[in-house]
Every structure is written in C-alpha cells, then in structure tokens.
C-alpha cells in the first residue's frame, strides 16, 4: 500500500485529473519523490530529455541532478548500482529504455536483486523498482517490442506487476516504490499516450492493493467465458468483450495486475462459473505466464472446465519485423476466435 502522499506542488489543482497512462506514471513518480527524499530516478536519458517516452519529464528540473540521474549507458550498471544505493537506504526507480535492453542487466536482477533479501535472511532489503516499457504495436525496429515478463515471473524473489490504465499506473507505481521488495514494473508502452484510455485519476482515492488481480468486466450470471490478461492486452480483451456482448455473448475480463506472485483466486472463482478460460498475452507461449495460468487453472478448476484453457499469444518466434506485428500480436479477432473455439469444445 502506498504511504499517504503529501503533495507540495499542484496543490491548486483539483484532486481529480484526466490523464493518459504516461502522464499518470509521471505524476505518480513525482508524488513518490515528494513523499520520500530517498526516492531517486535513474536511467538513460531520464534527465533533461525526460526519457524517450517522456515519463520522467520535468523531474530532473524540479528535483535536481542528484535525484534524477542520467546514467552511463549500461544496464547492468544501472541495476547494479541501484542495488547498492538501496542497500544504502535509497529507493531507486530505474528506467530501462526498452524491454529489449534489460538483458545486459539480467545477471544483477537474478543474482543480486532477487536474492539479497533471501540470502541475508531478511537483513538486507532492496526496494528497487525497475520500470520497463514493454510490448509491441508501435511499428518499431528490433528489440523494441518484446514481452519478457515471464522470465522475471519465473525468477523467485522478484515481484512483477503490470498496469493497464491510468488509475493503476498512478497508484501501482507509487505502491511499487513503497514496497520493500524489488519490483519489476512493466508498462504497456503503446498505450502511454493513448487519448482513448485517458481516465480520471483521483489522487485522494484509496488505491486497490498492488498485488491483487481485478475483475474489470463482470460477465453476469450467464457469463460464457473468462478472459484473463494483463498490460497492453487488457484493452484488446475489453474490446473483445464489448464486441462479444453485441453478439449476445457475455465475457468476464480479469486484469492480472500482479504477474508474480500471481493472484489467481479471482480467475478460479470466475472459471468455476464460466467453465471456460482464454489467457491472452503478447509474449511467446512456451514456458510463459500463460502456461502457468493454464497449468494452475486446470488443476484448481478441473471439474469446472468445459473446455481446455486456451491461449492467445505471440508465436514462438522472435518478434518479427513490425510490418508483420499485426499478425504476431493477439487482437480482437484472435481473442474472439479462441472464445468461439472454447465455446464449441
């Protein structure tokens, strides 16, 4: 849970602001930095430039160069020094420019960040947040559209979350920063500046808990199937549910929010009613989060399932040239196709 955030700027503003995900993240960061002087932001180009996606825009100007660090160009360095800063008592928020560039930092994440607390029987805490813009759909070149979240979900000791809307973006980021564990914070980059997703963020509201899934769309008593997803695919699934509703099919949509540890209780509960589940993710399917969801749902809901858990995911290929990404990414049609298959099983 986020500590109560004291605002020192914008006090004249209304407590409700209409924000994109990008702006909500920016405001969340600002609030976290105001609330705790130990919160520092570090990464490539996060200072003057405000990050290539402008998520850190204006922070260096207002908080100074010692709290918003344009670091040397090396991800192991960013994460490795963040670990040391955390040991010293700071709460670093690292930005990885694109998810495809997190791999040089994989060792520090896996060997130090994820394990220091366990290794020291809790004596060392490493409250580091690593912000990772991820996912495709932006027509980018190689390494700029991947979905590596499953690798971190498979790594014990890490918490992995992903937001899908401005309200969550605002709160989840602050909650991740106040969390004493390392958090990999996956941000759906193609939705950063989506005007369609703009939402009213009430900065005085009480946020949902960080490590909990949420049912975003109830299917009602006659719900035909459940869709479970996270991050950029949430919008796809919500749109699919809307389309299905027009055809008279009622779908429940669950936003995982926490990818590790998973909070699957709402999914089990839903599947026990609907009997059918489609898990949706842009990541390749093999040994992934959607595999885990299928594995656990088939076990927990064995007698409720009327069709196997189906998955709509990226293929087991590297991310293709982006002229082909419409084929790679789960879209409304592929989701509905899977629902139809499940219903016809």
């Amino acid at each position, binding site marked *: 849970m986020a500590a109560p955030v004291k605002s020192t700027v914008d006090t004249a503003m209304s407590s409700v602001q209409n924000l994109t995900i990008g702006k909500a993240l920016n405001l969340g960061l600002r609030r976290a930095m105001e609330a705790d002087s130990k919160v520092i932001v570090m990464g*490539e*180009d996060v*200072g*003057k*430039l*405000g990050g*290539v996606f402008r998520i850190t825009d204006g922070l260096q100007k207002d908080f100074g160069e010692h709290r918003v660090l*344009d*670091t*040397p*160009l*090396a991800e*192991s*360095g960013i994460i490795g020094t963040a670990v040391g800063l955390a040991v010293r008592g700071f709460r670093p928020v690292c930005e990885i420019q694109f998810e*495809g*560039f997190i*791999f*040089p930092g994989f060792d520090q994440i896996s060997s130090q960040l994820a394990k220091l607390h366990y290794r020291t029987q809790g004596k060392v805490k490493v409250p580091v947040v690593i912000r990772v813009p991820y996912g495709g759909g932006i*027509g*980018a*070149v*190689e*390494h700029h559209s991947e979905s590596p979240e499953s690798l971190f979900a498979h790594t014990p000791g890490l918490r992995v979350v992903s937001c899908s809307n401005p309200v969550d973006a605002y709160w989840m980021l602050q909650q991740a920063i106040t969390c004493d564990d390392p958090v990999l914070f996956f941000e759906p980059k193609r939705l950063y500046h989506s005007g369609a997703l703009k939402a009213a963020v009430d900065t005085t509201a009480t946020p949902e808990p960080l490590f909990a899934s949420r049912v975003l769309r109830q299917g009602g008593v006659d719900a035909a199937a459940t869709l479970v997803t996270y991050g950029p695919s949430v919008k796809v699934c919500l749109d699919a549910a809307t389309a299905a509703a027009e055809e008279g099919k009622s779908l429940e949509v669950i936003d995982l929010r926490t990818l590790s540890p998973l909070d699957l209780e709402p999914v089990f509960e839903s599947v026990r009613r609907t009997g059918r589940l489609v898990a949706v993710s842009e990541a390749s399917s*093999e040994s992934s989060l959607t595999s885990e969801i299928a594995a656990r749902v088939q076990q927990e809901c064995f007698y409720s399932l009327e069709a196997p858990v189906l998955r709509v995911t990226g*293929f*087991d*290929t*590297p991310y*293709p*040239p*982006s*002229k*082909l990404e*419409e*084929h*790679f990414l789960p879209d409304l*049609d*592929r989701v509905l*196709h899977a629902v139809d298959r499940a219903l016809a099983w």
Partner: protein
Amino acid sequence: MPSPEQWTRPEPGAGPAATAAEPTPEQVIAGLRATTEGGAELTQLLTPEGERIPSAMFDPYVTDVDAEALRGLYRDMVLVRRADREANAMQRQGQLGIWVPLLGQEAAQVGSGRALQARDMAFPSYREHGVAYTRGVDFRELLGIFRCTDHGGWDFQRHGFHPYTIVIGNQVLNAAGYAMGQKFEGKVGDDDNAEATICYFGDGATSQGDVHEGFVWAAVYDAPLVFFCQNNQWAISEPTERQSRLPLYQRARGYGFPGLRVDGNDVLGCLAVTRWALDECRRGNGPVLIEAFTYRMDAHTTTDDPSRYRLSDELEVWKHKDPIERVRVHLARSGGADQTFFDDVDAEADRFAAELRDFCFNMPDPPPERLFENVYSEPSPVLDAQREEYLSYLAGFGAGEH
C-alpha cells in the same frame, strides 16, 4: 604517440588533494573547446579550411590518394549524405518507420570504410550506412530495417559487412570472436592474405560491459581488430562526460594496446589512421582503438528531439567543420576538381536519391508466413503447427479482411 598520463584528479604523491570543487568558468570554457576541437592529440590531415597538414606518421598511408582518389572520397560522401537526407525525408513522409541519420559522420564512415580491403570484415552498429555503402551494400538493402519489413537482409559474407546490431555493445564481442577466428585460421601475418576486422560503436557504448570484454578478449588473443569508436559527442541526450572522465581513445591505455584520436570529420585522416590500424592488425599487432572525433549533426533518430537537451550554438560551431565542405575547398583550391565535377556529383546524387525513393515507395510488405521462417535452420514441428493454424485461421477471414 604515447601521451603523458593524466589523472583528472588527484595527482597522487602530494597527499590528499583538496575536495573536488566545481569547475571554474575557465575550466568550463576549456572543456567546451575540447569538445569541439578534440585536443592536442587529434590527428588531422585536412583542416576544416581544406588545408593539408603533413603527418610523418600517417602520410605514408595515403601516398596513393591523388586528386582522383580524393574526388572519389568526395563523391562517396556526397552520395551517402544525399541518401541519408532522402531517407530522413521519407521517414517524415511515413515511408519509413524510423531513420537513424548519419549526418556529420560521413568522413568517419567513408574514410574508415574505404580503408578496408575486400577480405576484411566490418561489424557495424546501426548508424553505419556510410560504411555499408563502402562495402558495396546497396543503400536500398538497408531500407527494410527502417521500413520494418525485415531485420536486415544483405549477404554479410559477400560484402564483409555484418548485420546491424542494435543492442549497444553486443557487436564488439562478436567482432572480437570473428577476429580471433581470423587469427586461428592463420590469416594474421605479413603475407598477402592477411585479414583484419573493424568494429563500430559510439561514445555511449564505451560504458557497456560487452565493450570492455571485447577489449579484454582482443588484447589477450592479439586479435586483428580495430575498435572504431565514433564519438559524435552524444548518446541520445547524454554528453560524453556522462560516460567518461578521460578522452575515450585513452581507454586503451588500461589494456595495453594503442588508442588514437583522429578528426572524424577529416576523411583523409580517417582513411590514413584506419589503414595504419588495419595494417598493424594484419601484422599481428592488434588490437587498436581509434576514436573518431565527430558530431551528430541531426537528431539521434527521427523520433528524437535534440532541442530538449542541446544548444544550437554547438551545432553552429560544428557546421564550420563539415566533412564534405573541406574536401570540396581543398579540391577546388588545389585544382583537383572543377565546377563541372561538383555539378556532376550533385546530379549523380540526385539520381541516387531518386532511385532510392522510387524503390522505397514500392517496397512490398512481407507475407505473414515470413513470420515463422528461419527461426531455426531446420523445421520445427511446434512452429510448423503454429504456422499452419495461423494461416488457416487467416484464410478463414477471406482474402480482403486481414
């Protein structure tokens, strides 16, 4: 050219120095001057004013560069710049997803690229369109990456030009391995079959662990590898001071191989220094680090907005150091070329750009099945099943829908 060792602070032996203070205004000015001038150790054969400066060390490497050869280098740079500008414009028109401009770095790329021999190998990062051109890779073959129809498709072996590498620093290790292979195959030595490798990376890349490991490996295995660092002063929004206290060519000092700084806007200097370095490598005296001191005259990519982080003054200063202009002046003054030549080159560049444009506008989209090809060299039943399922799903939509 060994240089006196300089620690920025402290000079040991004098007891603890005073606490590192903010720089004085004089120091700031000196620092800025160094930023555009490259310092005392810069090798320069052709000044921005087109004046030829003799160099005892490097002149022997360009004795063959007569007026004709210089006209060739001029033509290379003009064509490359023209193509770069055309691609940049096409991105603005929505024909490319992104473009990575090389504006200002033509001399560094053409000079070093022309220093290579056919059997040498080059490992680029993602901005080396000028090097690609010197390796015979058609500019049109580069466009797929930026139009996002492919990840790069030229025949790397035929051209001696490795695929572009986007993840900063990776290619440095790959190049070190390749150069080790040249050595293991006995291609290093002073006979006529000697080979060498050149590897390109930026100022920002020098911070990456992979670049360090590349230095370690190449040094330990005496690999015939020229590390060619184009210091264009910026890594997106970060100036070189965010990566290093020392001029980057001095990094080599810690590894026991030579590091040199050349004026990266001087095509003749780049040609000479790179030829020297490749020669050293072919003879078994590699590796060598070259820092080409240049400037990124355009944005980092077409998605970047440099006005957020750098002053246009800097750009103005560097305009006076233009790599093409100094060759033009030199050729004109020395009688090495007349106006007809310059006009011809301009006309050729226009045709070159028009062809590129034409090609780009007509590039087909890749077919969906391409997605599943070449994941492995042999078929995989799992992927075959995914392809079949997806293609039949697509077929279910009928022709027009997807």
